[in-house]
């Protein structure tokens, strides 16, 4: 019987892209999407994460949710690096139209043009949008 080695995954590695399009708190999409990314990060796939449209608000710094009685999950995005999710992008156009810049964000991201994001999407095997 073959030994199962937990650390080695020798199945096919696919390119997964998670596209985050919703603001946090108003709906549950942002939190659920983040949980899916953290769970699937355990499967040694080629994962990238993109923040577009209102999704860029998910990584706005200074979130303070005490008064609305909800969990502030924005610090959790800092854990992505520890899960080896290192390809994290944000859409320049989405940031600019919302008055945001790299300085406003809780994690370092690579800011890409819409064209560059389109190219990245084309290269993926699986795209999951929240």
């Amino acid at each position, binding site marked *: 019987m073959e030994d199962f080695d937990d650390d080695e995954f020798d199945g096919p590695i696919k390119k997964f892209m998670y596209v985050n399009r*919703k*603001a*946090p*708190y*108003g*709906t549950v999409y942002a939190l659920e999407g983040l949980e899916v990314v953290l769970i699937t990060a355990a499967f040694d796939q080629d994962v990238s994460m993109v923040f577009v*449209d*209102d999704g860029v*608000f998910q990584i*706005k*710094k*200074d*979130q*303070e*949710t*005490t*008064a*609305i009685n*909800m969990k*502030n999950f*924005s610090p959790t995005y800092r854990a992505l690096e520890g899960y080896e999710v290192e390809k994290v992008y944000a859409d320049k156009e989405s940031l600019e*139209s*919302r*008055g945001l810049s790299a300085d*406003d964000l809780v994690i370092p991201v690579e800011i890409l043009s819409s064209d560059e994001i389109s190219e990245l999407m084309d290269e993926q095997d699986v795209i999951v949008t929240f």
Partner: protein
Amino acid sequence: MALLHTVNKSPFERNVLSDCLRLAKDGSAVLLIEDGVYAALDGTSASDEIISRNGSIKFFALGPDIEARGLSEKPLIDGLTLVDYEGFVDLVEEYSSVQSWL
């Protein structure tokens, strides 16, 4: 008789704020709550919607929702007033009725 309108959707994702402002009369008030507070930001592609009615309509935003979304340090539209939950209740009392735009 003046209405208090509440808007809880992001102006970047939905047209709810525009729909509200199309029918809101001068002298009424608009309170931005939940994801609606993103419309309170100055210098965005949506800011003009409120700026163009500023003065004829009173605009408010719910402070706890601004804080939750990390917007406390960002510039908000001039003339817009932040209220807390008690202020929300005061507004409900002050206006004749509440129109909740969902």
